[in-house]
């Protein structure tokens, strides 16, 4: 009798586990997560990644008003510079394909953006030919400038590509 009970318990436990497992399965394979591709150029964004994920729209809004109305066209927080770094290698754009940088998250979050009704999704010229300058304001460049250490031309070129 005891043995029968034990077998019964084992069977029940297995069934319960299987049931729990089957319940967990669809959750894990729910909506496909956005593909976040690493920027083609640059090591670090102009702001820390978590701040950028939460607040990029605020930075962009502020910058656009400054640029359009005041004529202050700094590179930091400029949409053009976002595109320069984040344009995908495959499509050369931030919003042409489903996996491109901007579209990937925005379609996942179901937030429609109309930036690209007017703004070009592609960097000016080809990605590889983008000239490296210190004003691109990447952290690595800034730190290098602050530390006053000598960064070789090869290293800087490596950062750019």
């Amino acid at each position, binding site marked *: 009798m005891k043995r029968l009970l034990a077998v019964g318990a084992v069977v029940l436990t297995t069934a319960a586990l299987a049931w729990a497992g089957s319940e967990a399965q669809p959750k894990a394979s729910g909506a496909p997560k956005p593909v976040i591709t690493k920027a083609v150029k640059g090591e670090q964004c102009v702001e820390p990644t978590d701040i950028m994920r939460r607040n990029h729209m605020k930075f962009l809004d502020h910058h656009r008003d*400054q640029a359009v109305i*005041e*004529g202050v066209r700094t590179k930091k927080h400029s949409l053009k510079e976002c595109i320069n770094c984040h344009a995908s290698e495959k499509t050369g754009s931030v919003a*042409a394909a489903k996996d491109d940088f901007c579209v990937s998250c925005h379609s996942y979050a179901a937030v429609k953006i109309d930036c690209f009704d*007017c703004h*070009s999704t*592609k960097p*000016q010229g080809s990605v590889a030919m983008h000239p490296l300058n210190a004003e691109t304001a990447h952290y690595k460049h800034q730190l290098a400038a602050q530390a006053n250490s000598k960064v070789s031309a090869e290293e800087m070129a490596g950062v750019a590509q």
Partner: protein
Amino acid sequence: MSELKSMSDNTPNSPERRRFIGAAAATAAGLAIAPGVILVEVAHGRSEEQGASSAVRWGMLVDATKCATGCNDCVTACSTENGWTPVAESAHPKQAPQWIRKLELQDPLTQMETNLPMMCQHCAEPPCVDVCPTGASFKRADGIVLVNRHTCIGCRYCMMACPYKARSLVHEPLNDTQKADVPRGIGCVESCTLCVQKVDRGDGNTACAEACTAAGHNALLFGDMNDPESEISKRLRELPTKQVRADLNLNLGVRYHGI
């Protein structure tokens, strides 16, 4: 402008001093490049952090006596620089954008023909700004009249108000054909920006004026009308010029000679 600005922080900015600095810098830099180019560079190169200044007023002098019949170079240069489809290539020519267009005028009595480009006149008192219900149509500190496409609702009131028919509406999606420097799109009004992207970059010239000079006509001259030493101010002092519809008293940024 950056040099002048930084100096004026701790010294009184007298006109004599301004002129002296300008002349000195022009002579120093003039050794390297042509003098005409330098004057513009010295007067208007400003740093990225610095906004447009009301000390500057950008303007253009159109010499209609030099504007060649049949030449369309300014229009082509504008469409190439700013990425708008020329009227001839447009599927809907009546709706096609015209940031700048060539006009051929004939006096009915004397048969005299005049050629001139017509575009946004960058009024000091722009009617398009007066009527805009959202404040999208605005005049920048340096006199350039622009449309803020982030607030434009495409009502086209400004197009009605403009005495020069200088504005147009984008009717169809542009499908990512815009230039990276010149955002423009469906449902927004647009017009000549005096190549604001080039001005802010410090080029000190517009695409149309560059093309006109390259073609050897020299009918277009762009510059700072507030700087008494600029080429455009000197020419405006010498040449008799007119404002189109001067009766409206709008104080135009584009002046015509020979009309």
